[in-house]
């Protein structure tokens, strides 16, 4: 499991302008719903947008500290 603040910090480290919200769906810290808003997504396909976020969380995902990650990416309104 991983604390939502760690997830947020890892994403912001990779995408400094990102506004990130992390919701712990089960309270167990391993099923997370994450929404990321960043200008870094501009011009990228959804797959590439999600890959940027997955890249920031590579370690947590590889170790399965995060088991399930529901992800939403968008550009600032």
């Amino acid at each position, binding site marked *: 499991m991983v604390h939502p603040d760690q997830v947020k910090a890892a994403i912001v480290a990779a995408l400094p302008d990102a506004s990130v919200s992390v919701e712990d769906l089960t309270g167990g810290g391993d099923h997370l719903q994450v929404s990321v808003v960043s200008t870094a997504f501009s011009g990228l396909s*959804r*797959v590439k947008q*999600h890959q940027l976020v*997955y890249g920031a969380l590579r370690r947590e*995902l590889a170790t399965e500290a995060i088991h399930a990650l529901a992800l939403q990416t968008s550009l600032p309104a």
Partner: protein
Amino acid sequence: MDSTTQQRIESLITSSPVFVFMKGNKLMPQCGFSNNVVQILNSLGVPFETFDVLSDMEIRQGIKDYSEWPTIPQVYVKGEFIGGSDILIELYNSGELRETLTVALGS
């Protein structure tokens, strides 16, 4: 990933216009995210084939390396990775998925 695994992946994703790597199978998905994808494709009434990654550790890891995508399910249309559960839901809601699949299956 060894070249045998890569070849197996490439032959799987081109074996059907719509191909899904998932946990479990169409009738008994073993994970909520995999189930989402199956339900979406069923509701659009498109034919698709699946591979149960729980049955094969080489493919389970190999497919993540292949697409540089860390999670299952993974959906391929005409051999191209289009996304996992979240993206499928978004594409479905926006109507883009129906369009993409109509084009892929029509050609």
